[in-house]
């Protein structure tokens, strides 16, 4: 079940030291255009507040 996977993934990422707030999971129906916009807006603000991700990110060269 996707929701159980996300619950454990969020918790596990947080455990190894990747901010748990970076993992965002929610339900949006295809008919909920307004809600979709709100969720994305909220998620973007949340991520911006955390700053750039630099853990487990690959750089080349």
């Amino acid at each position: 079940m996707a929701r159980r996977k996300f619950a454990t993934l969020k918790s596990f990422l947080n455990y190894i030291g990747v901010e748990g707030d970076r993992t965002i999971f929610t339900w949006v129906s295809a008919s909920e255009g307004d809600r979709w916009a709100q969720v994305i807006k909220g998620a973007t603000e949340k991520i911006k507040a955390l700053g750039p991700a630099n853990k487990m990110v690959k750089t080349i060269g």
Partner: protein
Amino acid sequence: MEKRLIKKDTLAGIAKKMAGDMMVWAPVKKEDNVLFETIGKDGEPFFAYLNSKNAPKNVFFPHTETLMKFTRTPKGMAFSSEANKANQSVLFGVRPCDAHSFALLDKLFDQEKYQDAYYVAKRQNTTVIAMACVKPPYASCFCTSVDGEPVGSEGADILLTDIGGDYLAEFITSKGEKLAQYFGDAKADAAADAKKAEIAAKAKEAIQSRIPAHEVKPILDVNFDNPFWNTIHGKCLACGTCTYMCPTCHCFDISDEVKGADGIRLRSWDSCMFPLFTKETSGHNPRPSQKERWRQRAMHKFKYYVDNFNAIACVGCGRCVMSCPVNIDIRKVVEDISKL
């Protein structure tokens, strides 16, 4: 040959002094493991070690190495080479078996026909200082069976031997002599030489584990299809521990990694124990099971390398014996082959 005596307690100081002037690789205690790492001026080398956990081959042949870089530009691809970027460095305190492994790797990476620029550059710029095994560190040491010696200098530029109160430093090559200034100026006398010879003989005697490494070559020549090969791989997990720990295993894989317009070509270790090692694009695998992979490993060490370079590709360090998760013992394998 230049020979000097140095006081035992000055050894770490010498390594640190060198570290101020060049890059120095030395054994370092890291939690429960002893590993070869670069030490700075304030680094603490750990010379009271038996042998390092992993082989120091990564100094010349790193696990992952950038071969070249490339960038996509409007005018086409731009390439830049990564070879010959090796700095002057010292590999301080390897055991004679590991120093021996460099001589074996040279045969492959530094041949007349093919020269590996990456390996050769590092090898030429690195002085190898070996520390003799006065007492063989492990029961699984078998260097004397594969042309090695616990107090041997093959592959080393300087050999240090603990002769009681002092270390006898022998400068084997001219590369080694260039570093003589770091070793004080107490010249060694004949008594030190005699003492060293005595220690060398004793250490050689102390190596209990022996294998018929030279005898198996003609047997392997004719036994490619022997049912014996069905008997060794049963418990093998197909992990790469033995090959990654081995000082002479040198198989590698090459891959490209690209991000946006930039990319690098990497060389990284590979292992003949992995199923993917020989898998072809079509999906066919000429070595379909662990049986063929194990035969390859044994054959490569004791037959193919002898065919190609007239040397056994094993230095008897015993690392694969000690670190195999399922206790497959190469000594037993060779022993069994000799009885075929």
